[in-house]
């Protein structure tokens, strides 16, 4: 239940000229789940550790509920971090691990025991109090680490790549668990990931970070619909980029002219731009009278629930995805009507 604000944070490591994080401002609303997303080395873990108090920023301010917390040492901040490799203390039992935070606060032994049981129940791992961390599976260790962090009722929960060490089937389970607990305890949560899927699965808001700079801070859906740059669009799995020149409500490309929705016409970049559209937003043979262009199917990749098509339009190849149950077969070599819906076309500056 804490409102976290990062205000123009900067971190320059000693011996380095370029800052690892620069001019980083972010408002993390009370009780929300926010992801720091970016490629490795972009400064996202540094930022997380600055919130935790494990790294001191070179400049800027961090506040929890309008209180500047930079002078407060890590152990008194109430920002608990769960590391990527869980870091359960190997020579302590699971119970002692989970109770560690309360022991450090001088809580009575009996109360600790009760709370440990409650927490282990919450992460759905009762009956393992006496076990050693080495006897647990990766997924169990992760949940014990989560219980250990939550037992202190932290003001802010910080997770480092919470799903990336887990198998596919455990990921969904863990995701549901984190979401349920986070909603139940309403703890303000920040997590770091390099995997856009992980970010989309968990976060209310995603902060996209490249080279230590905040690029965009919006909801997951927004990232798919309205990426701020070509790089951001590519990071979210965008594959179709066509160089374009815009003229008011329409854009000229070397494969043809398209109309695009008025909502972006105010804010859209001008000059050298890229037209981008996600594969699943392209319609094939849907009978639309406008924004249609002829193309030839070069490749069909059947994936089961959908089919992925590579279509040659002039000298350009675009990728489209089509649901399996749509009527009409499309085969390699077929000529198709490729429809770019005007409200799906998005324009980004050329990078």
């Amino acid at each position, binding site marked *: 239940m804490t409102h976290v604000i990062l205000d123009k944070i900067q971190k320059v490591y000693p011996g380095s000229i370029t800052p690892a994080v620069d001019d980083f401002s972010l408002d993390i609303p009370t009780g929300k789940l926010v992801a720091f997303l970016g490629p490795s080395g972009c400064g996202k873990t540094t930022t997380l550790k600055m919130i935790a108090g494990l790294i001191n920023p070179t400049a800027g301010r961090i506040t929890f509920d309008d209180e500047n917390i930079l002078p407060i040492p890590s152990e008194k901040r109430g920002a608990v971090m769960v590391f990527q490799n869980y870091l359960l203390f190997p020579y302590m039992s699971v119970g002692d691990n989970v109770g560690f935070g309360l022991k450090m606060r001088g809580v009575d032994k009996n109360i600790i025991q009760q709370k440990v049981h409650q927490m282990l129940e919450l992460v759905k791992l009762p009956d393992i109090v006496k076990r050693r961390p*080495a006897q647990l599976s990766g997924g169990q260790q992760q949940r014990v680490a989560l219980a250990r*962090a939550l037992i202190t009722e932290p003001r802010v929960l910080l997770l480092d790549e919470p799903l990336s060490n887990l198998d596919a089937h455990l990921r969904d389970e863990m995701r549901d668990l984190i979401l349920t607990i986070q909603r139940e305890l309403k703890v303000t949560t920040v997590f770091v990931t390099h995997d856009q899927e992980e970010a989309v699965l968990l976060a209310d808001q995603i902060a996209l970070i490249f080279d230590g700079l905040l690029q965009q801070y919006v909801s997951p859906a927004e990232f798919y619909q309205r990426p701020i740059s070509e790089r951001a669009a590519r990071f979210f799995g965008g594959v179709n980029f066509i160089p374009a020149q815009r003229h008011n409500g329409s854009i000229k490309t070397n494969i043809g002219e398209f109309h695009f929705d008025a909502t972006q016409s105010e804010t859209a970049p001008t000059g050298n731009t890229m037209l981008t559209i996600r594969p699943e937003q392209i319609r094939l043979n849907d009978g639309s009278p406008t924004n249609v262009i002829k193309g030839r199917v070069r490749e069909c990749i059947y994936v089961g629930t959908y089919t992925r098509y590579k279509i040659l339009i002039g000298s350009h190849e675009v990728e489209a995805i089509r649901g399996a149950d749509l009527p009409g077969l499309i085969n390699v070599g077929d000529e198709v009507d490729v429809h770019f819906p005007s409200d799906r076309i998005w324009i980004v500056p050329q990078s």
Partner: protein
Amino acid sequence: MVPNNSTILTQDRRARVATLFRNAALILLLLGLILPFAAFIINSLAFRWFYPQLVPNEWSLEAWNSVLNDDLFEAFYNSVVIAVGVTIVSIIIGIPASRAMGLYQFKGKRFVEFLILAPTIVPGIAVAMGLNINFLRWNLAGEIFGVGLVHLVPVMPYVVLTLSGVFANYNPEYEQQARTLGAGPIRTFWYVTFPAIFPGLVVASLFAFLVSWSQYILTFLIGQGRVITMPVLLFTTIPGGKNPNIASMSLVFIAPAVLILLLSSRYLSGESNTVGGFGQV
């Protein structure tokens, strides 16, 4: 593939030969360790022992009686005080030094490494001669404190080498984890760092104690013959040529070392994740 009878037989024979070799090696090793002790014990109890008798003609506790006197107690006391003090100080200096060597990369690391190892290459006598002049000037020569100080020179390489191995396998993020869970720096050390490096600390302390315990030349030169430790006493007894006395004194000299080795043996075996930070978790 199912192995046929003959391959089972050869495997069986091979295993038996291996066991035989292992047992033979074990017996040789034990003999090598025990025989000198047996010789010392027999010698220390011999009163009259003439060629060609295999065992003494007469047994007696006289050697023990004459050796266990105030001089020996004082030397033993001095040795213990110096060795324990040196061990404690070397560990206190050694932990931060090894942490830096094991965990961090910094400019001139190779040079620092060389400086730490130098005492194992440079002859002790050269160091002692050089230090002696300064120690005389600073009134440290002839004092237990000065002797302890000079013992740190040969002891530090062993401590730092052992502990940097520990820290090389150590993940300092465990400390960060403890910090965010509410442990201050002191409790973080006590609950996280200390248990992780404990096996390594035992081994390093053992080295420190033994290296200090067996110093002769440094003690003799810096102690000016006024600080009498066990090795110094032993060296002055040997020219006397009384075998029973030498033997019993040697036993007193060796006893603490053997005792400590036995007590810490479980940390020396490869099975405990000795010298290995948190090992595999």
